[in-house]
């Protein structure tokens, strides 16, 4: 299939764009694959891509119940960062960041990764110390981090309320300059195209409805398009993890599904050139290349599979936007939506072999899995191909909860709706 480039665009424009081919094929499922990946979201697609590109396993199918990118990859606030506190997380997310930095080239697809920085604001001396702690942890592990103070904030984020008149006045922020945003849909499409070009079958409208087992061993799946066998079956279904694993007889997992809403305003000219988070509540906001402010806050806070939220959170989030940016009060909310988060019991993910032989699990991404997309796929592919985790995902086991090796960035314990 043709490479994408400025030249190919011009050439095609001359022929009325009639020669473009589908970004990925629409194959019929084969009876059997080496690896079946359930879930055509970011993580499923990147896993397939890296299985083919890094681990030489190309006889792979990605089964997606709807259309590629219909899940959380297609509905997140697009923030990419590796500014973690705990040692278990940092190497993994930094690996992801490095993959992001070269992703458009690697995929020959512009995923528009914009390293415009993320600034986590703090508002009290205690919060300042917490942010310093995190920044120091980052630097000690080779990740970029710096403090920004109000004069610089004023210059870089002119609409920010620095008057000191807010409930939680801004004292400063912790910045990760290499962090930023990426075009979420493009990430799904780019990985899909990349995997497809390496021989992976991406099969849309193919819902997994059951598992084929010989004893404990998983040997395939039942789908809405028939039975498909595989030597290994890997699930990367994010918010649907419990539902899909229940099909394999795994009825209890350290995961709850919760709805997270996100919001965009109408498009306006550039007014926010970096990503900002609020320390007085829970808000993250950036401006898309199209001009919309894209933002989100807390999860709605109860189990849900509904992909839509309720009004109180909408009101909370708007009030937090205005707490920081009183100039945005007249901007208008264009659209709001929800996604189903696989909230884990410690707020950190699971990338592991098991829980049955022949089965592999990638889950527990909470609202932070978009940034993980490259490393998640890379580590999951490694785990599937080698049957053991890479050191980056070694801490993300399924048994860490019972054993007490939780990775709890927020210190909330087993209350997933508070992570």
């Amino acid at each position, binding site marked *: 299939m043709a490479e994408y480039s400025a030249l190919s665009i011009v050439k095609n424009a001359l022929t009325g764009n009639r020669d473009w081919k589908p970004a990925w094929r629409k194959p019929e499922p084969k009876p059997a694959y080496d690896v079946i990946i359930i879930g055509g979201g970011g993580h499923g697609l990147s896993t397939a891509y890296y299985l083919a590109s890094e681990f030489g396993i190309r006889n792979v199918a990605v089964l997606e119940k709807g259309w590629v990118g219909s899940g959380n990859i297609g509905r997140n606030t697009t923030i990419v960062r590796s500014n973690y506190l705990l040692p278990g997380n940092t190497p993994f997310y930094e690996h992801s960041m490095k993959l992001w930095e070269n992703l458009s080239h690697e995929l020959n697809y512009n995923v528009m990764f914009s390293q415009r920085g993320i600034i986590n604001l703090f508002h009290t001396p205690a919060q300042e110390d917490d942010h310093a702690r995190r920044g120091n942890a980052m630097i000690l592990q080779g990740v970029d981090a710096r403090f920004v103070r109000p004069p610089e904030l004023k210059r870089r984020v002119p609409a920010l309320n620095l008057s000191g008149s807010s409930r939680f006045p801004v004292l400063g922020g912790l910045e990760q300059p290499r962090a930023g945003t990426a075009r979420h849909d493009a990430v799904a499409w780019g990985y899909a195209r990349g995997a497809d070009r390496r021989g992976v079958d991406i099969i849309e409208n193919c819902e997994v409805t059951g598992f084929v087992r010989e004893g404990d061993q998983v040997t395939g799946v039942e789908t809405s398009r028939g039975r498909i066998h595989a030597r290994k079956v890997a699930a990367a279904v994010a918010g649907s993890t*419990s539902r899909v694993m229940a099909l394999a007889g795994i009825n209890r*997992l350290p*995961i709850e599904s919760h709805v997270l809403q996100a919001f965009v305003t109408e498009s306006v000219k550039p007014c926010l050139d970096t990503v900002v988070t609020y320390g007085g509540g829970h808000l993250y906001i950036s401006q898309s290349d199209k001009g919309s402010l894209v933002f989100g806050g807390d999860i709605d806070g*109860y189990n849900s*599979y509904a992909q839509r939220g*309720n009004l109180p959170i909408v009101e909370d989030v708007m009030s937090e936007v205005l707490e920081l940016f009183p100039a945005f009060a007249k901007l208008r909310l264009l659209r709001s939506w929800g996604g189903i988060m696989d909230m884990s019991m410690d707020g950190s993910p699971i990338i592991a072999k098991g829980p049955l032989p022949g089965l592999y699990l990638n889950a527990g991404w909470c609202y932070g899995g978009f940034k993980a997309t490259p490393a998640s796929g890379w580590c999951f592919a490694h785990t599937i191909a080698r049957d053991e985790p890479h050191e980056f995902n070694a801490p993300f086991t399924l048994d860490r909860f019972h054993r007490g090796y939780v990775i709890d960035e927020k210190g909330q314990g087993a209350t997933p709706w508070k992570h």
Partner: protein
Amino acid sequence: MIIPCPFCGPRDLSEFAYCGDADNLAARPDPAASDQSSWNAFVYDRTNPAGDHAEIWQHAGGCRRHLRIVRNTVTHAISDVTMPGAKA
């Protein structure tokens, strides 16, 4: 969402605090006698169904009682609300 509190009547979602899976909370193991695995399951493992889900909510901005609510996690429709511990 509007939650019909058996004592206070129908009230706004904003008055309530979610406390998790009711069946799980009801299965708190005997602290003295129990084995580790049932404790592990109690603290960490959830059924997380799509469909009817029994859950505990505190009417924190109201009577402050904990309610057992059966709510459909797909439609958010509430089909049953009771007050655990309430004596008739």
